[in-house]
């Protein structure tokens, strides 16, 4: 347990071990607690005495923890029954079990934040403290969120078929939270999506994995050393992670070949076109607009329409982009920022500067606010100079 790699390998065993306990008759909430305790013990013990069979070790220890917990008199009879019928650790159908856990943790009865927290703990094997730090909330708050979530799904049968779309939404949320504290949520989301892709053959799972890999490949170039945002067009493309891009593109192509297009595949296709352009000027904006049209057919969201207006501005000129923008609701997030950008490209610097300053006041993150303020300052300085 000395390296991050080891910890990831340990945590990858979590869903399988948890599923074994549930199949042996432990209720989900108690089994989940027991697996957490076993993980903590593994971190402590393995560096000194590495187990020959890590999965078997975890199952044995987690099962013992579970039995210890159910030692209360009221639970004794049930425990004795369970001990009598304890099966060997034997081979489990880990693919299906893993999948069932994803479904359970993303169950539609859970709020998005609860589903995220439960997935990170029960499937991801993160501790409550790690999840709390990543989301910048007190540990006690996160502990409550997780135990409430477990109570909510306690009546759900483990073998019920679930909806892949709800799982993908949860993983997408985790990925977008990015990086704060000592847990890299984007990397964790990729790991969990990869694990899901191994458990189920589904083009949208592949599409989401490709989308994540393609965005993750650009991460190092997205912020300057001083913490400020670097827009796509100004990123140092030489520092994009080519291995991650190649993997994302290959996964996407295989998914698209199956001809069951979905929202994530279309988004990944757009990301792939950006990744593919050697310079910002060589971006194939015409094809990107086509993918946005495709995306609109799949999901008519205002955010997609806004992004499409940007792409139209690149493909057909800023006037066309402004015309597309004029059809949209002006109160949409980032609407003003997009308008500022298109006016700047159209040569109307005074309007652009005013709109950038206005967009800064409406920004939803500090980095975005500072970036937009800087854009306004840049144009104002040019106006003075």
């Amino acid at each position: 347990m000395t390296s991050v790699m080891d910890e990831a390998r340990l945590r990858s065993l979590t869903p399988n071990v948890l599923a074994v306990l549930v199949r042996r008759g432990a209720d989900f909430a108690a089994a989940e607690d027991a697996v957490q305790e076993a993980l903590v013990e593994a971190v402590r013990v393995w560096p000194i005495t590495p187990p020959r069979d890590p999965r078997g070790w975890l199952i044995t220890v987690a099962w013992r923890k579970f039995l210890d917990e159910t030692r209360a008199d009221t639970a004794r009879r049930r425990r004795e029954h369970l001990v009598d019928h304890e099966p060997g650790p034997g081979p489990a159908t880990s693919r299906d079990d893993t999948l069932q856990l994803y479904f359970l943790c993303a169950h539609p009865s859970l709020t998005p934040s609860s589903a995220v927290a439960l997935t990170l703990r029960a499937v991801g094997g993160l501790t409550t403290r790690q999840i709390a730090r990543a989301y910048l909330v007190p540990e006690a708050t996160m502990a409550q969120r997780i135990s409430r979530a477990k109570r909510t799904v306690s009546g759900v049968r483990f073998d019920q078929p679930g909806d892949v779309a709800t799982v993908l939404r949860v993983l997408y949320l985790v990925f977008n939270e990015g990086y704060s504290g000592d847990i890299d949520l984007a990397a964790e989301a990729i790991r969990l999506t990869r694990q899901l892709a191994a458990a189920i053959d589904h083009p949208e799972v592949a599409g989401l994995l490709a989308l994540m890999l393609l965005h993750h490949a650009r991460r190092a170039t997205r912020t300057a050393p001083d913490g400020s945002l670097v827009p796509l067009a100004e990123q140092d493309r030489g520092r994009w992670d080519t291995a991650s891009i190649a993997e994302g593109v290959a996964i996407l192509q295989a998914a698209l070949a199956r001809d069951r297009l979905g929202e994530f595949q279309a988004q990944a296709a757009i990301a792939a076109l950006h990744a593919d352009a050697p310079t910002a000027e060589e971006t194939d904006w015409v094809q990107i607009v086509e993918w946005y049209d495709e995306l609109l057919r799949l999901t008519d969201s205002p955010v997609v329409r806004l992004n499409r207006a940007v792409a139209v501005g690149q493909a057909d000129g800023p006037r066309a982009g402004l015309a597309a923008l004029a059809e949209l609701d002006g109160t949409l997030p980032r609407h003003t920022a997009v308008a500022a950008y298109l006016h700047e490209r159209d040569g109307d610097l005074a309007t652009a500067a005013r709109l950038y300053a206005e967009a800064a006041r409406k920004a939803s993150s500090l980095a975005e606010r500072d970036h937009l303020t800087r854009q306004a300052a840049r144009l104002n300085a040019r106006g003075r100079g």
Partner: protein
Amino acid sequence: MAKYLLLKHYRGAPAPVNDVPMDQWTPDEISAHMQYMRDFADRLEKTGEFVDGQALAPEGTWVRYDGEGRPPVTDGPFAETKDLIAGWMVIDVDSHERAVELAGELSAAPGAGGKPIHEWLELRPFYGVSPTVTE
């Protein structure tokens, strides 16, 4: 140790000495300002005096209870609101003098022309805990 809240205002504080809105600075001046703020927080973490720091978006909503079974009433944002908080930093320091010293340092963050803004910051002490030993 005593905790203090350092409040920074979008509006409502007395006018600073170097009073130029940020979008009229140069991009480099903005970067220098941000760097100063970051360095300040980093330094306080190293001295063990930093507790928390957050920034707030300028547009908020007023909300109040409107009676049993009715949805809350919302109002605003009010463009004319006099007092608009931009963000805060919580510090845990040994004395009021130290808190004043740190607030002064933060207020020296560079603005237009690379010169200190001399921005007015509001320094508010937290209520402390009642001492266990009183006699």
